[in-house]
């Protein structure tokens, strides 16, 4: 199982380099924090408004933070041409994607976990009653953002106007996952919480479809 051992080795490298530089985590945590505080003071929502608009704002903040996080994902492999050395070393290039995808999802989830208590405090929304379902939605939504973002990051890193290209490609493709994630989150954070299983199933299918596409076409995305 060279794919899994290579993925584990590369994931270790991704985590080690990130925790050493803390480049992505610092940027995204600060960004999400600023957005949540800014909106909280600017809108000063009532409890009902918070429940209605809060989850939407939350996912908007996650989206922008993710696009900040995903931009350098493949771009930083260009500086020393490390992407070429990885492609020379691994049997299956999907291992490169898989490691980056898992790392991006973990970084995004870590940022969300740090931010969730602050979100609950600033918007006065109790998150504990349905926390496990909320975590499930955050995981599925973040995985969806990461899988699409990782693939597009590989494409945009080799293109001109790369800084512009990633958000341009990312936003339309992520619209369905963001709309559904926000809708399911609104239902979960309602006074009378409802679990929208159809929405959760949609997120799972979305993740699976894009993961399969990445597995099939990933090799071509890494070509010069």
């Amino acid at each position: 199982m060279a794919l899994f051992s290579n993925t584990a080795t590369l994931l270790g490298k991704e985590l080690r380099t990130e925790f050493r530089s803390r480049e992505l985590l610092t940027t995204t945590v600060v960004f999400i924090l600023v957005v949540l505080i800014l909106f909280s003071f600017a809108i000063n929502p009532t409890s009902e408004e918070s429940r209605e608009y809060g989850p939407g704002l939350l996912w908007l903040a996650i989206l922008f933070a993710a696009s900040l996080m995903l931009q350098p994902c493949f771009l930083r492999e260009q500086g020393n041409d490390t992407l070429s050395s990885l492609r020379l070393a691994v049997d299956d290039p999907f291992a490169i994607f898989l490691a980056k995808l898992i790392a991006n999802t973990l970084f995004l989830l870590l940022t969300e976990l740090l931010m969730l208590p602050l979100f609950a405090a600033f918007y006065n929304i109790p998150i504990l009653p349905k926390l496990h379902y909320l975590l499930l939605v955050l995981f599925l939504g973040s995985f969806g953002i990461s899988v699409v973002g990782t693939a597009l990051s590989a494409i945009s890193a080799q293109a001109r106007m790369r800084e512009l290209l990633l958000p341009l490609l990312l936003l339309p493709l992520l619209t369905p996952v963001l709309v559904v994630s926000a809708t399911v989150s609104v239902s979960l954070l309602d006074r009378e919480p409802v679990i929208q299983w159809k929405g959760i199933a949609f997120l799972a299918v979305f993740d699976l479809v894009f993961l399969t596409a990445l597995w099939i076409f990933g090799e071509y995305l890494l070509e010069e």
Partner: protein
Amino acid sequence: MTATTATTLSPTGLRFENIDKRYGGLLALRRVSLEIAPGECVALAGRNGSGKTTLLRVAARIVRPTAGKLSFPGAANEAATHHRPGYVGHSTMVYDELSAQENLILFAKLQNVPQPEARAEELLREVGLYERRGSLVRTFSRGMRQRIAIARALVHRPSVLLFDEPATGLDPLGIAWLAQSLGDVNRRGCTVLMSLHGESEISALATRAVRLDAGAVVGDTQTGASLRSILTFAGA
């Protein structure tokens, strides 16, 4: 290169058959046909933009040719780790945020090298970076970075080595070290294809020189005097 690299290699050659590589409107390689025998040391010469780097990247299988075929005569199983070419490009191809040792262990593990820690330690001694094994690569000088780049290319004991201007950033002592190392590797049966500018201790290792111009092979010689003329012409 001593110790572990002294392992005898199953000889592998390189065969380019009518290779074309097009980048958009630019034809970087045009119908390149070249056969490099197992164990041969070939210098690739030519002016900037003549296609040397592209040809080496095609040989390394980093770049897929638009047309034509690349094969490795003598490689019983091309998927075997040591039949993957070792490639040193213009960049270091290692991670600045990892130490020299971590980089070598990473690439050894990815290529299923037995005992990756021991192999990394061995290579670090060979390239003279053992004392700095724990230092992050970003703290290295240009010459040290070139040494770690070479160590990375050798980590899986390749039977084909591809070097793109290997002397870049090395001082005279470094060039002498590289010439000796390359010579040792080549004598063990490793096929070497390297792009060069002008004559040096490294070019003296080459037994054959191939000159590229505008993506096509325009010269191929094995005689001493002609070889020098090709290399000096390319460096002009």
